[in-house]
């Protein structure tokens, strides 16, 4: 990605508070983002919420890069009403790592994290109610992972619930 380094007031404050947890603050196409260390995410988000007034959690999502050892890119998009500024936080986590849930800071994260768990299999530690949201409760497999083919179905689920042989 042809990202350019992000220099700004917010970036200075983040660097001052969190030091080496912020790995790469950058800007691409005018959108600021920062790659951070996974353990620091809850404290960074809490600081952004209280001190920097980023009070609206827009989205939590993940991207699967299967060839990397840190397979998933967990992305948090935050917005501040008072500053009219949007910020992206990205963190690289490995398969099996359980990031801390941020439901305590932003209540929006409840369903958004459930969806990330459902689609990617990333379990969030400390989430009050982590279960599947879009897929049925007893579905095996996490559909948005790159090794889950687009035509794949959970054969046992189809057999048990629909009583037919899965076409796959």
């Amino acid at each position, binding site marked *: *990605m*042809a990202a350019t380094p992000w220099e700004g007031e917010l970036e200075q404050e983040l660097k001052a508070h969190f030091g080496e947890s912020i790995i790469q603050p950058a800007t691409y*196409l005018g*959108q600021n983002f920062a790659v951070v260390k996974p353990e620091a995410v809850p404290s960074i988000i809490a600081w952004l919420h209280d001190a920097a007034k980023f*009070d609206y959690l*827009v989205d939590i999502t993940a991207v699967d890069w299967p060839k990397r050892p840190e397979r998933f890119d967990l992305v948090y*998009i935050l917005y501040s009403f008072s500053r009219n500024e949007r910020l992206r936080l990205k963190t690289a986590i490995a398969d099996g790592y359980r990031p801390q849930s941020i439901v305590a800071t932003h209540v929006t994260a409840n369903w958004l994290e459930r969806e990330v768990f459902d689609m990617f299999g990333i379990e969030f530690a400390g989430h009050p109610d982590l279960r*599947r949201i879009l897929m049925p409760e007893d579905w095996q497999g996490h559909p948005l992972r790159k090794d889950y083919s*687009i035509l794949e179905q959970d054969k046992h689920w189809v057999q048990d619930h629909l009583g037919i042989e899965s076409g796959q």
Partner: protein
Amino acid sequence: MPDATFLDSTELVLNMGPQHPSTHGVLRVILKLDGEKVLGTDCVIGYLHRGVEKIAENRTYVQFNPYVDRMDYVAAVSNGLGYCLAIEKLLNVEAPPRAQVVRVILAELNRIASHLVWLGTHALDIGALTPVFYCFREREAVLNIFEKYCGARLTTHAFRIGGLQYELYDGFEREVKAFCDMFPAKVDEYEELLTRNRIWVGRLVNVGVLNAQDCKRYGVTGPVLRAAGVEWDLRKAQPYSGYEKYDFRIPAGRNGDTYDRYTVRMEEVRQSLCIIRQAVETIPEGPIMAKVPKVIKPPVGEAYVSIEAPKGELGYYVVSDGSTQPYRVRVRPPSFVNLQALDRMVRGGLVADVVAVIGTLDIVLGEVDR
């Protein structure tokens, strides 16, 4: 009483199943009730999950465009606008001015159409059986304009990456202006039916209150946020597609109850008419498509672009790995995030209010489940 039976408990778990006329789609709400008072809810969604985000990884950018309309199927044009803006951002191109103005006109017509469906179905759930017919009658006028422009009424596929595919048809300006002249009287008619009606007021005032602080905590956007008093609209805060050129007001409510959401959406419809009138006077001449390569291969990178859809903030987070197919498309659906606040809004209320609140949140399950 010899021994305790389940009849002794006062708590009832009621399933407002996926097939229900008032849930606006296949939404299942499990209600925990004490008589008529709601103690808690649990929403079960996913009945309309079609894996749109997975499909996106297996289609080219141009091929994915028609799929996007099918998420918020009531207001398909906005979905297309958001997607095209996101890919244009990745490609670093901007649609030409003529395309931008036509996009604004169609997006605002689409907002009116979406709010008409909302009004009709919400009134129908509350028990007012008349407005739905009038709303759908007016919606026909809007859908006729869409059909004449792009060939389809509901799944419009109106925009392309880089601009527009179709040139305006003869009579487009005339029909849009005729619609703008005809419509305010109809909005007055709906208001005459509903706004001061004691049944409407009694069912809506102080029902499903969500104040501004809760809205921000729950990440709720769109008319629900504006009804709570926060005057925030992405068309003013972070304008796209030339919205900064138009002069319009952002309606805001005061209490954040269902009646305020009703007045905010009615006023939004009037403001949309205002925008359309300004836009249709000033359609510039020029090309309708920017210089976009035949095979779209954005450079490696990612972008998040969001627009003010009729339901709230609709965002597209697109990650490109340099090939012809997107690596990841994430759609941030406004209805999904707004639906989370349902529990907060109905707790402590009555069962009939659950129906009113689901209607007022204006959810479309195609968008919630994707």
